[in-house]
Every structure is written in C-alpha cells, then in structure tokens.
C-alpha cells in the first residue's frame, strides 16, 4: 500500500531536481527557474503535510535508503542514509517547505521583477539549499545529519555570495562558511567520536547512540569505548564537540559573527537562512539528539548558559543598528539564544515551539524588510525611511504582526513560545546556577528585544518620510504581498498550537497540542518523546512563586511587562514625527555596541595572526627545510669543486700524489698486515 512515507525521498528530491533544472536549463525557462522552484517546493510542502497527517494518524517511520559504506571486520560501522519521520521531523518538514515555498514566491518579486542577473544560479542555489535542509531534517543518523549540515553551509556560501561582482558578498560568504566550518570541525570530531564510542550514529532505536549512552551510564551496557573516561565525562565531551557545530550554525556566541555579515545575501535568502534552514539546523540538531544531551547535566547547563547569554548579548547589539536587516540579524541570533536556553533547561517542547513560531515571524520580518527594500530601491538605512505605513499598508500590518510576535506581546505567537522558554528555565533553575544565569539573561533580553524591534518599526514606518525615495516608494506586487499575508496570519495565531499557560491556569486539558504531539501521543518512535527526555533528564521542577499556576502567571506577567516597558521606551523615543538618534545616551557603551563588542575585530585579529604564523611557517619552510635540501646540494657541489682541484694539470704533481698515495697505502697495510 502506498503511504505518505514512500514519498519522503521525494520531499528532498523535488527541490534537488529544481536545482538541477535551474542550473542547466534555467536560462531557457520562463522566470529563469522560479516556477520550477515554486512547483518543487510546493510539491514538497504538500507531501510534507501528507507526512504530517500520516504521523498524526498514528504512525512513524524509519527507513534506510542507501548504504554509503560498510565495514566488514573489526570496525563494523554501517554508514548509511535513511529517513527518520517522527513528530519532530514531520513538523520541521512542513515548516521548512512552507517557508521555502513562500521565499520562492517572494523571490519572483524581489529578484525577477528587480531585473537581477544570473537568476538560474539563484534558483539553483535556493533549490539546493532547500533540498539540503530537508535532507538534514529527515536524517536518521548523525553522520547523514552532518553531511547535509555541511551542504547547507555550502548553499549559504553560494547564496550569501550571490552578488559576487561586489566586494562585500564574497567576503561575507567566506566568513559565513569559515566560521561555521570552525564549529563544524568540532561537530565532525564529535561524529567520529560517536562512531568510535558506540559503533553507530543512529538517532533512534535500541541500538542508537542515545540509547546506548543511557544504558552505559546506567551500567547496563558493556563494550562502549569511553577512552578511559567515566561514561558521563566522555559523553559530556562528545556532546560538547557536537555542540560546536550547533554554535556555529545557529550563530551562538562566540561564533555568531558571520550572521550579520550574511545580510549581504539577497533578502529572501536571509529569510530562508534565518527562519527555516541554516540557523535553524543547529537548534534542530540538538532537539534531534536530545536524548543524548539530557544525559549529561554539564552539557545542558552550558547550552542554557550559552543560549541565555547569546540572547541578551545579541539583543544589546540590535539596539544601535541603522540598517533594517542588521537589526533583524541580531534579533535572529538573540532568538536562537532563547531556543538554546530552552533546550539547555529541559524545555524540549518549548524550544521546538519557539523554533516554529520564530520561523514564521522571522521569515515574515525578513520578507517584510525585503518589501521595504524593494520600495526603497535597495537602501536599507532606516534613517532614510519613515512614514512608509501609509504607502505600503500590507507590508506595514504584516510587519507589525511579526514585530509584536518577536517582541513577545500577548497574544502573538512569540509571546507564547518565549514565555514557555522562560517558564521552563525558571522552574528548573532551582539548584542550577548555570540555568539561573541563563534565565536571568533571557529575561533581561526581553525588554531589549521589544525596544529594538519597535525602534525598527517606528523608524521605518512611522513619522515623516526622511528621504525622497521614502516619499515615493516603489510599489510591490502580489508576489510580495501574498507571502507576507500568509506569514502575517501565522505569526499572529501560531500560538494556539501550544497554549500551556492557558491550560494550566484555566485547567483546560488538551490544548497543549504541541506537547502532546511531541510526546508521541498520536504516533512516534519509542525513546524520542518529550516525556522520555524529561524522565532521563537531570532537572526537577521547583515553583518559586508557590504553586504551579502562580508561577505560570507570575512568569508571564513579568516577561510581558518587561516587553511592554521596552516597547514603551521605543514609542517614546522614536514614535515621533522627526525622530533623532539617542545613542549618545548610552555613553561609553555606544562605541562598544556599534562595534559589536569588537568581536569581529577580535576574529579578524585572530585570522591575521594565523596568517602571520603561516607567513612565518613559509619563511621557515623556504629558509630552513628547503634550505637544508639546497644546502646539501650546495655542499656537494662545493666539495666537488674542491675535490677536483687536486687535478692541477701538472703531470709532476700527479706523479707526486701517486707516489705519496702508494706510500701511504704501503705503510697502512704494512702496519695492518704486520709485515715488519
């Protein structure tokens, strides 16, 4: 019987086919491959929804498609490609394909209508990007995940550097690839370590590495090679190694620096990268192998701390940026910090929830920004905008919805997910100082987020137009407005899939759909459920405000209040007819924030140091290593030159030398032979 799962490969392959078609035939096609891309991603979306429904109807799926390589002797590793379709991946498939489809449609407006060159390359890149991400999502083992993770990196390189004829984009593309590659190095070491430790990298099943790790810690499994460490210690090391890749891709501190630069790419690509593909990949990976991470409290604490810190750290940088997309970039870093905080504090569902809502509102914000950029003739400086509210209402209202979600204002999607993250961190922080630090920073980031978000909104859309272009912006077409509308609705209402506070406060059972979904209530794979993670996880819940309900209410109130404070401040400062810069009020911090805490400078310095070292190595190589080689040759030749000098050309000398040599030999052998 044909089931939805038979078409799982097609979900990945359709965008891939679109890539191939656009690459080779794109220039002959109408719209240079855009329609093919839309068709392919829409097809994938439909199939993904079908798969989602299939999971909803109670089944899950795991299948191996292709054995990549297989050991035969002492290292019987099986390296293969397969699909793991469970509630998590099914949800993610829908998100990715939805965003990808909308981005393709939007690109018609942003790229085709704007008369960009090299469109086949653009659509080929989008197709490959989508395909890679989908391959990553369905991966049923860590190696396959790594491979598609890398391909995602490649695609980001290609798309960020799309405008290769300028100086900036190629440099940004290089930086994006290189910084994430640095993280991936640790990831790859982790993958290798997982194989060396467990002999398998499968995510699911009794022989999967999380399951083996669990039983190894319980002492029930023998033969796990932990390289002389305690299992927990070793698993912490391995977990942190894999986390390196996550930090790189999800742009967490200190590997976040590539992401703001990545704004050099076309705006739809930014939407794709930030909402559904590259950056999401890191967080998704942690969720995918959550069963491994929850085993080691240290790792969890570090994840939470990194997440909380990044959330605050990136948010502070967002408040001084002048360019629309830059603000969004820092907001992305910050929001993924929240997801990491959630994962680190045991909020598996909360993280997935925020991943979902963020995908919608961040895609929305980027596409909205793209719409503004079209209107502004590719001027991104917010100080040149203003008053666009009336000129482009669709963009404004959808952008506003996205902003409210991002700022975490009730009842938009972002409120629910962010609130749950902070709640989870709060109730688990009891005896965990790392968690508590993460929570505190996450909470502090809330007003900052609301402030920069609405600073952006007010500067862009409110007040008076501050430039000629802003007074007469270029109109946008259906292909821009359509995707914005879809996402605007989603950003407003996605919260309903998981209204835990409502459930807890009002006692309405069953409206925490996402919890039930991820808990395999309808279908799923044994061992990959949220309550399993909670069981083996290190945390216990304490309620600092007495009861659970009180804590829920207090937590929500605090975060909402803080968000409103940030919003209010932005309103006061920037929702005026002629806003001015207030950065001077920051004092010494201004320069620090403008320069992104000198993180870029630090990394450039590091890169230059490396080049310096390599220059020295080259000097050493040329001078010493090769010098020895040439020295041996020179010494040989010079000694040859000396040796031949005994051939003086004078025959008398020859006779003398001959006689002397013969005499010397006679004497030597006389002594040796004892003749006398």
């Amino acid at each position, binding site marked *: 019987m044909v089931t939805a799962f038979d078409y799982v490969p097609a979900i990945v392959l359709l965008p891939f086919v679109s890539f191939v078609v656009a690459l080779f035939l794109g220039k002959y096609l109408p719209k240079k491959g855009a329609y093919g891309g839309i068709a392919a991603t829409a097809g994938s979306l439909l199939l993904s929804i079908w798969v989602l429904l299939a999971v909803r109807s109670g089944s899950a799926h795991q299948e191996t498609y292709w054995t990549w390589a297989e050991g035969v002797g002492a290292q019987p590793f099986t390296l293969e490609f397969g699909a793991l379709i469970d509630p998590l991946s099914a949800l993610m498939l829908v998100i990715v394909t939805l965003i990808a489809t909308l981005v393709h449609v939007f690109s018609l407006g942003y790229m085709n209508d704007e008369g960009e060159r090299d469109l086949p390359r653009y659509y080929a890149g989008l197709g490959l990007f989508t395909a890679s991400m989908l391959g990553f999502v369905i991966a049923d083992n860590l190696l396959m995940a790594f491979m598609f993770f890398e391909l995602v990196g490649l695609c980001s390189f290609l798309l960020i550097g799309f405008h290769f004829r300028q100086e900036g984009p190629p440099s940004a593309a290089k930086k994006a690839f290189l910084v994430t590659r640095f993280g991936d190095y640790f990831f790859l070491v982790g993958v290798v370590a997982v194989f060396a430790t467990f002999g398998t990298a499968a995510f699911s099943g009794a022989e999967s590495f999380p399951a083996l790790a669990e039983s190894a810690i319980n002492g029930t499994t023998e033969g796990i090679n932990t390289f002389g460490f305690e299992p927990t210690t070793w698993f912490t090391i391995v977990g942190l190694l894999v986390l390196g890749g996550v930090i790189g891709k999800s742009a967490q501190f200190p590997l976040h620096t590539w992401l703001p630069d990545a704004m050099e790419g076309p705006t739809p690509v930014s939407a794709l990268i930030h909402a559904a593909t590259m950056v999401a990949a890191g967080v998704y990976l942690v969720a995918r192998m959550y069963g491994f991470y929850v085993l080691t409290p240290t790792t969890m604490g570090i994840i939470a701390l990194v997440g909380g810190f990044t959330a605050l750290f990136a948010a502070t940088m967002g408040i001084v940026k002048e360019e629309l997309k830059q603000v969004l970039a820092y907001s992305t870093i910050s929001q993924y910090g929240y997801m990491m905080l959630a994962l680190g504090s045991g909020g598996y569902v909360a993280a997935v929830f925020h991943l979902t809502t963020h995908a919608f509102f961040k895609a929305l914000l980027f596409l909205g920004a793209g719409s503004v950029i079209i209107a502004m003739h590719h001027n991104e400086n917010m100080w040149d905008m203003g008053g666009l509210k009336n000129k482009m209402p669709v963009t404004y209202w959808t952008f506003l919805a996205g902003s409210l979600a991002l700022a975490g204002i009730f009842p938009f999607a972002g409120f629910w997910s962010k609130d749950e993250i902070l709640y989870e961190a709060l109730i688990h922080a009891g005896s965990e100082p790392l968690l508590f630090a993460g929570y505190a920073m996450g909470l502090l980031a809330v007003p900052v987020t609301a402030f920069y978000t609405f600073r952006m909104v007010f500067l862009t859309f409110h007040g008076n137009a501050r430039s000629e272009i802003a007074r007469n912006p270029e109109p946008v077409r259906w292909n821009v407005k359509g995707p914005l509308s879809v996402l605007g609705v989603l950003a407003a209402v996605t919260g309903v899939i998981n209204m835990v506070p409502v459930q807890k406060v009002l006692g309405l059972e069953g409206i925490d759909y996402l919890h039930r979904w991820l808990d395999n209530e309808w279908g799923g794979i044994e061992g990959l459920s949220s309550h399993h993670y909670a069981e083996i996880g290190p945390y216990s819940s304490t309620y600092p405000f007495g009861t659970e309900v009180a804590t829920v209410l207090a937590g929500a109130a605090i975060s909402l209040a803080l968000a409103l404070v940030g919003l209010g401040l932005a309103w006061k400062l920037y929702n005026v007819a002629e806003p001015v810069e207030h950065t001077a009020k920051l004092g010494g911090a201004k320069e620090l924030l403008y320069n992104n805490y000198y993180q870029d400078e630090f990394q450039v310095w590091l890169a230059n140091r490396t080049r310096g070292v390599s220059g020295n190595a080259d000097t050493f190589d040329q001078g010493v290593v090769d010098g020895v080689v040439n020295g041996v040759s020179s010494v040989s030749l010079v000694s040859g030159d000396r040796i031949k000098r005994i051939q003086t*050309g004078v025959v*008398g000398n020859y006779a003398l030398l001959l*006689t002397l040599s013969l005499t010397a030999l006679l004497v030597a052998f006389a002594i040796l032979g004892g003749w006398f």
Partner: protein
Amino acid sequence: MVPPEYYLLLSSGLFCIGLFGILTRRNALYFLMSVELMLNAANINLVAFSFYWGNLTGQTFALFAIALAAAEVAVGIGIILALYRNFGDVDVMQAATMRW
C-alpha cells in the same frame, strides 16, 4: 751465495732512485730515463730470484720486460717529439692546459 735480501735492497734502492728522478725532473727525457731505472729494478729482482728459485721464468720474463721497455721508449720519444712541436719545449710541466 748472496742472501736474497741484498738483491731486494739493491732493487728497491734502484726503484727509489728512479722514483726520485721522476719526482724531481721536469725534462721529459729524464723522466723517461728514470722510468727505465725503475723497470730495471724489477728486472734485477726477476733475474735474482730466478736464480734463487731455480727456474728460468724470471729470466725469460726479464728479457720480455727489456724489450717492452725499448718499445715504450720508442712510443715515448714519439710523443715527446710531438710535445716539442706543439709546446716548443720538452718540459713536462709546461703542458698543463687541461686541469680541474
């Protein structure tokens, strides 16, 4: 009978005189004559020990050696003549255009 050591001393002395001549003389003809002395040192040994061992091998060989020495001188004189024609001298040290 004269002990064989005496012959050896005599021939060695002669050989060394010839060698000394070679090392000190620049004139090609002297050089040639010194070589003759050295060959004759060998001949003394051959003849003496032919007597000592009681066979004729040494004496016969000495005759051949003398004949060869003569032939050698003939060739040598020819070369020295050519030397004189080309370099205007019979100084063996003069012909030193090729070296190293």
